[in-house]
């Protein structure tokens, strides 16, 4: 099989002196349908914009532009709301992109509730059987949830501060523990940002393996989310089946790459092949993956014919249209809400097929999120199989961590890396010391940080308390990726 390795997406950088001119360009492009993500709102502002797909198909799938605002103060809360709600998006992005993200962000439509008969359930930070720490405050009137407030801050490890002043390779193990269930994508985004800054492209031999790692990670993550969703509806049999498939795939990961969560493989410049087990054998691994694919389709097929499951998911936790417009959720949550953004399609990285099709649904409810994950899981396992069929670890042995190439003065003091993590768009922005190449500052835009603000408005949208665990599970977000 011949692999087509696309060049890394080039990014045009435009710098603005005033907040007004920055904002004008930003909102113009938004109105033309460009996707935005605010990479950083610290020492100036940097937004990444991805053009609509299909314009420039041969070279890059989407044009990529960075809008940089060097000056303070940053653009602030919009004076008047726009018809397209795009300034609300900016407001939300600004609040979650700072070095101290404003985690308590609520949709502008949310108002404090009080009244007779109102009861507030505090849930957390210790909650459920095995769960990350987060405090939910559910205000209910009878059975109906009228408001949800989320309080994070329990888990902060201050990762952005911790990596400051470190060399890239010293920061890498910390970034690999940002969110372990997405560590391949975190390190990949960091590696791509470093490759851009030092202008050292990743070795082409690493491209197919990077796809293999990324899709194994996505499949494990989706299997875990589907197990949690089945558990939330009280269906133990599919929960156990999904958990068994997840465990089986984690063992495949271990057999191929020596780590159940694939940590330590992706590094700037390519791969750390020295960590590959000597006896990695793609043939039995492919056999297991084929079994997993078959079983996963069978379980999903049975769930799709289980009325007690469908009843709980259909129409539950609908993300309101205003929140979709204002917050633009990413990943499976966004794609279940009619937003067709998948970075694998929009930007060329690693060696994804140019005709990759991603499922997009518009119901925006728990069922749509379930369906999107089911379809993406099958697609990921297909991609794993196609990369495994031509995968020969012996041909990777020349790939190693090149510490020298990524230390010392970088070609450009800033680098950006954007990937499609299992939970959605994940972007890293490095600001490097011009002499030593050490990290001056790190900006990270995680999919969970972007999607959590959608949860309260989807929960307090005509649902009853008994729906809450199901809606919560249907989002499949990580707290570590938000409260970092």
């Amino acid at each position, binding site marked *: 099989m011949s692999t087509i390795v696309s060049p890394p997406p080039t990014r045009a950088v435009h710098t603005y002196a005033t907040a007004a001119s920055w904002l004008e360009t930003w909102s113009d492009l938004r109105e033309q349908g460009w996707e935005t993500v605010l990479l950083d709102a610290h020492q100036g502002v940097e937004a990444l914009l991805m053009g609509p797909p299909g314009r420039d198909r041969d070279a890059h799938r989407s044009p990529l532009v960075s809008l940089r605002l060097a000056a303070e103060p940053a653009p602030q809360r919009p004076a008047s709301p726009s018809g397209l709600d795009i300034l609300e998006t900016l407001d939300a992005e600004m609040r979650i992109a700072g070095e101290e993200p404003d985690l308590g962000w609520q949709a502008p439509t949310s108002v404090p509730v009080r009244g007779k008969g109102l009861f507030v359930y505090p849930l957390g930070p210790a909650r459920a059987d095995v769960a990350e720490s987060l405090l939910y405050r559910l205000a209910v009137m009878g059975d109906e949830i009228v408001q949800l407030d989320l309080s994070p801050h329990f888990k902060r490890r201050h990762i952005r501060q911790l990596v400051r002043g470190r060399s890239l390779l010293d920061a890498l193990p910390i970034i690999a523990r940002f969110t372990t*269930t997405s560590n391949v994508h975190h390190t990949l985004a960091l590696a791509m940002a470093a490759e851009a800054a030092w202008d050292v492209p990743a070795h082409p031999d690493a491209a197919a393996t990077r796809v293999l790692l990324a899709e194994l990670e996505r499949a494990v993550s989706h299997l875990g989310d589907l197990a949690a969703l089945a558990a939330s509806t009280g269906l133990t049999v599919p929960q156990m089946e999904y958990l068994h498939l997840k*465990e089986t795939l984690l063992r495949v990961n271990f057999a191929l790459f020596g780590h159940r969560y694939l940590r330590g493989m992706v590094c700037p410049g390519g791969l750390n092949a020295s960590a590959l087990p000597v006896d990695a054998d793609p043939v039995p691994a492919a056999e297991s993956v084929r079994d997993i694919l078959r079983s996963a389709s069978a379980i999903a097929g049975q769930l799709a014919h289980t009325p007690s499951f469908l009843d709980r998911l259909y129409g539950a936790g609908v993300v309101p249209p205003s929140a979709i417009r204002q917050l633009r959720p990413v990943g499976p949550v966004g794609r279940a809400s009619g937003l067709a953004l998948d970075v694998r399609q929009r930007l060329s990285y690693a060696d994804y097929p140019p005709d990759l099709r991603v499922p997009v649904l518009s119901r925006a409810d728990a069922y749509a999120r379930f369906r999107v994950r089911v379809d993406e899981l099958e697609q990921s396992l297909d991609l794993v199989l196609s990369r495994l069929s031509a995968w020969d670890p012996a041909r990777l042995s020349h790939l190693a961590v090149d510490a020298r190439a990524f230390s010392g003065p970088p070609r450009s003091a800033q680098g950006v890396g954007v990937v499609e993590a299992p939970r959605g768009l994940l972007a890293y922005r490095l600001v490097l010391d011009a002499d030593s190449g050490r990290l001056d500052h790190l900006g990270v835009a995680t999919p969970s940080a972007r999607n959590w603000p959608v949860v309260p408005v989807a929960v307090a949208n005509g649902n009853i308390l008994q729906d809450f665990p199901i809606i919560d599970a249907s989002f499949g977000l990580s707290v570590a990726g938000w409260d970092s």
Partner: protein
Amino acid sequence: MAAMSDPAAVEVAAPTWDRFPRRSVALRHLDAGSCNGCESELSLLSSPDYDLTRYGFSFTPSPKHADILVVTGVITEAMVPVIRQVFLQMAAPKRVLALGACAADGGIFVGAPGVLGSLAGIVPVTVTVAGCPPSPGDILRGLLAVTDHRDPRAFGEAME
């Protein structure tokens, strides 16, 4: 193929020989600043591959029903009062299992603001399970070490 298990993972920090309920042991998990890797492995204990109920273990959402507190993560300052409160609410006899490199000694996050990196002085730790994350098999060994006061691997070696 290398084994997923780490022979040295389980460390019994404070062997105590008073009676401990052996047949039915309820676990209360508490995340004190994890990366969600330890949670991912912990939740696999319920899978048919490990099935923790075979050994009498089960998860409970209520501290009042819990016998073992399983703590993951770096131990952030914000979680200290929560850990204390949950342990206080548990009925004696009760034990604490520190799970993963972070809970054991802060791991790679030592020195980050608000990160304590240790349960010392907060709750008494009976057993520590190393690993980042520890595999579900090693977590089970750690749980059995809490109830049996020694790493079950030691029994296996004695029989070999």
